[in-house]
Structure formats: C-alpha cells, structure tokens
C-alpha cells in the first residue's frame, strides 16, 4: 500500500513533464502534420542549456529554466524556417525524413560538443525529502511538478485565450480556410513549431536536474512523446496532458510491479495497443464525416 502511494506520487511528478513533452508534439503533429523527429533532440538541448546556465553562467535553476525555454523557442523557429517552410506541400514522408536528419545532426552535435559523459545539474533545494504520510518526495521534484503545471496552464491560456491561439486552432481545423479568413499560416506554423520545441526544451530542463543530462536522453523521451500523442489523439492538447499522466502511471506500475527493465517498454506497448484497437486515440471525438 505504502509502495503504491509512493508510485502514485512519482506518477504525478513524472506525468507533469511527460504532459509537457506530449503537448508540444501534439501541437506540431496536429497543426502542421509533421512527424517531428527533432522533438527528442530539443528535449536534450533544453537539458544541456540548463546545465550550461547553471554550471557555466552560475544562474540558479529558476533562471535557467527560462533560458532553456527561450533556447528551444529560437531553435524551433530556426528549424521551421530553414527546413520545413521550403518543404510545405511535400508529403509527410519527406518532412519526416528531413526531421530525422535534423534530429541526428542535433543529437550528434550535442554529443560532439559535450562528450558522452553524463552531467549532473546541481539542485538548489535541500537534500532531505519532504515526507507526506508514507510517501517521500524531494523538493526538487515538487518544483518540477509545479513548474510543469504552470507551463501547461500557460500553454492552455495561450491556445484558448489569445488571438495567436485562435489562429492556431483555426489552422488545425483547416489551413486553407484559415488562410482565406486572413490567418497568416506561415507565421502560425513557425509559432507552432517554436512553441512545441520550447515545451520539449522545458521538459528536458525540468527532468535534467532530476536525473542526469546526457546526449542520448532524447531518444526514449521522443518515443514517449509519440506514445502520449497517440494515446491522447492527434492534435488533442487535453488528451496529451492526460496521456502524459497515463504513461507515467503505466511506467511506474510497470517498473514497480513487473520489472524495472521494462519501464521504457510501456510507452511502446501503449502505442501498439492503442493503434490496433482505437487508432483515433482514447480521447478523440468521433471521426468527422466526409
């Protein structure tokens, strides 16, 4: 029982970050119809930016986080403008392959610059964990959850309360019609990709200090993000948020009660199962007619 409570607490902490990852990817996938194989690399970049900000610039974690987010935003915008904008109208396979190429460049670039040795980001929080009943949770992890929830809330507000968000939603529904109604679709695509990338970088910046920072951390994270997107349904932000927590729960329980070696398998099993039995995702509305 105590063990279960601990797993649930861990699920909450992990799920918040997973939700960030998933929301970023579902926006890009849903609005732009691009299978973004740079998402994991941007997660890695976010983690390294945090490491740099803390270790090299001497900033504390609270200031390092905005640095990482800004870095992700700019890098995402750059990728979109240089690589995706010229390919608009190409089939999904072409953009997917280009994104794979860009992902390799980013990941190998990180490895080249920082080397293969994992780095630890020092935490400004006290070592002693907070005891909540039978479960214990470190202050750092609580901060991670709080920051993740704050960022999810901000993303929601941006999508639902701003003009940019309205244009994004219109583009998601139908890019051609949105363009006819005066939405600058090019700008929306750049903004979407930059925002999705910033969320990936934020997730990396938050989980980097919890674990360690290394160049290969993005690979599994990327596939987890895909699992979350598929679980939540394409372009469904709420679905991705819930999907993040479901994946975290499945991993926690899988690792706790089956075998820790299969923790990472949970996401893949979810992808396979969902696509075979409910390809529109768990939270998708009925398919549109016609």
């Amino acid at each position: 029982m105590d063990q279960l409570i601990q797993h649930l607490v861990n699920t909450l902490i992990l799920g918040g970050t997973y939700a960030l990852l998933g929301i970023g990817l579902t926006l890009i996938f849903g609005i732009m119809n691009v299978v973004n194989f740079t998402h994991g690399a941007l997660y890695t970049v976010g983690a390294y930016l945090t490491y740099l900000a803390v270790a090299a610039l001497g900033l504390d974690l609270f200031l390092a986080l905005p640095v990482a987010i800004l870095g992700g935003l700019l890098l995402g915008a750059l990728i979109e403008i240089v690589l995706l904008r010229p390919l608009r109208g190409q089939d999904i396979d072409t953009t997917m392959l280009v994104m794979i190429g860009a992902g390799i460049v980013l990941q190998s670039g990180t490895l080249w610059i920082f080397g293969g040795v994992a780095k630890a980001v020092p935490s400004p929080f006290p070592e002693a964990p907070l005891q909540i009943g039978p479960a214990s949770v470190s202050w750092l992890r609580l901060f991670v959850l709080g920051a993740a929830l704050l960022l999810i809330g901000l993303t929601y507000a941006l999508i639902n309360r701003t003009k940019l968000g309205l244009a994004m939603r219109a583009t998601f529904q139908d890019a051609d019609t949105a363009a006819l109604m005066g939405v600058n679709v090019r700008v929306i695509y750049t903004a979407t990709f930059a925002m999705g990338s910033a969320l990936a970088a934020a997730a990396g910046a938050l989980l980097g200090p919890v674990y360690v920072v290394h160049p290969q951390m993005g690979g599994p994270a990327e596939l987890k993000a895909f699992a979350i997107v598929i679980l939540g349904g394409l372009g469904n932000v709420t679905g991705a948020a819930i999907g993040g927590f479901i994946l975290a729960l499945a991993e926690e329980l899988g690792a706790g009660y089956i075998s820790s070696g299969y923790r990472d398998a949970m996401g893949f099993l979810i992808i396979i199962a969902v696509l075979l039995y409910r390809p529109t995702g768990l939270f998708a509305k009925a398919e549109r007619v016609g």
Partner: protein
Amino acid sequence: MSRLLHALPPLALLAALAALPLALGSNPYLLNALIVTGILTIGAMSLNLLLGYTGQLSLGHIAFFGIGAYVSALTSLGFDVELGFGLRAVHEPWPAAVGFVLAVVAAGACGYLIGRLSFRVRGAYFVLVTISFAEVVRLVALNWVELTQGPLALTNIPAITLGLPGLGTWTLRTKLQNYYLVLAVGTLCWFVVARLVGARFGRAMRGLKENESLALSVGINATRTLTVAAVVSAAMAGAAGSLYAHYLRIIDPEVFAFTTTVGMVIMVVAGGKGTLMGPVVGGLIFGLLPVALRPVMAPEAQWIVYGLVLIVILFVMPRGIVPGLAGLVRRRPARAVPVLEASPEAPR
C-alpha cells in the same frame, strides 16, 4: 538486346565487387568495412522493398535484422531457459547454416505480423508502430538475460559451415570467405527483388502506391500484396542479421539500435528508393564513408555529416542519386522499372 543492356550495370558492379579483394590484397580493415557494408546494404535492399515500392516506411526495420541475428546465434549456440510454471526450454546447438535458415523464417514471420498491421495503420502511424515493435524487441533482448545474456552479449557464435555432399565442408572463418558469402547472399537478394518488382507483383505494388482505390478496382488485393512485400523484406533483413551474427561472432542488444535503421533509410533514400540499384549504390557510399571519414573526424561528427547529407539530398535530389544521375545521362527521366523499354518487341 535492350534487356541485356539493362542487365549490364548490375553485372559490371557484381564483377567489380567480386574482383575487389584481389585489388585490395589482404587489407583486413578494408575487407571488414566491405563485409559490414555488404550486410547493411542487404538490409537497405530489404527496406527498399517496403519503402521504395509499397511506400510504407518501416522505421523498425532493424527489428527483423536483430531477430535474425539472435535467432541464428541462439540456434547455433543452444540455450537452456526457465519459462516459468516449471517449464524449461532446452536447445542443443545446431549448425550455423540451420540458424541462417531459421533466422530467415523467424524474421519473415514477424514481417507477416507487421504486414497485416500495415493494412490497419498507414503513414505516420505505421512508422510509429514499427519503431515501437523494434524497441520492445530490443528491451526483451536486453532484459531476458537468461536467454540473451542481456548487455553481456552472446559470444563465441560459431562461423557458418557450408557443406556439399561428397565435396567436404568449409567453415567460413576468414574475412575473405565471409566477404564472398555476403556477396553471394546479396546477389541472391538483388535477384529476388528484381524478379518481384519487374513483374506482375511489382505492378501490383506500384499500383497500390500510386492510386490505391484504382488498384483495388482492377482486382489487386492490397492486404495480400503488402503482406507478401513485408514478409520478403523482413526475411531478407533476417538473413542480413544472421550473416552479421556469424561474421562478428558476438552480438548484444545494440544490434537493435535505432540509428542502424536510420543508416539504412539514408542508404535507400540517398541511393534512390524504388530503384534496384539505389540501395546498393547508397549502401556502398554510406557504408564506406566512415572509412574515408575516420581519419579526419570523430564518429559523432560523421553522424552530423550523415544527417546533413540526408537533408541536402531530400532538398536537391529528392528521388535519390541513381535516378538523379540516370536523368542526367538520358534525356528522358529515368523510370523505376523500365517495363516497356525492356522489350521493344512488345506489339504496339
């Protein structure tokens, strides 16, 4: 005559590859690079059957390769595993050549499952399902330590022994022997793909790729066609994996690395997907590029180059090197399978 003309470039390439070790002398480093390149090129040829001819991108293709490697290795090494419920599976070692056959069969069977699947999920979803499949298999190889030794790797995998009744047997231990084995298997695979795509079955695949509804309406069975393509493709990848295991004689779960699939994708896309020569040309270029780049840059820098090359090729030569060059040589754009040109005697 024209048929002969079309057979000429591959035959010339085959002759050149067969003669290459004579020219290289006994440079073990280069020979090793050629063998591994050859094995990966077989993988690329198998991937091309799906990606190039049916249009389905299998980013988990390495699963078939790795399954082939493990099945072959375990068949020839033997194993003794507890299955739970008091059940035990004990297997005495069999000859490596049997392992090769079983690797082809096992990988083909997995290809059957993926092929059936491809009819339910297409496009990006198919890509994600195949990646997930490969990662699950990798995690099993990593965690089922009793069977696979996990990260400690399966070692002392025997070399393949070939025997002809009355003529004795050869155990292929030297690099030179393995080189010719890979070349022989590669040639066989090339032949299988060429036969498949050049005839009725190839037209069915092209029809489905170009206009699926129309293809169905002329009586093409989509499920059957895609499944057969996936089975043949997976079986070939399994053969490549088996060669890999018996050549290196040690395998660990890293054979399932996603980057190897990406490498094969680069070979196919750069060489020219949907062409017979594309994966071979792409395979040779990208397989041997590390040999050229090794003195000048670190492996991670090489991967940066690969990523950039993939991007650049998609931008400037989206159909790949072989069709691109063929288009420059001929006035008319090159075609994937020149059915009509191949026999001018066809009544018009």
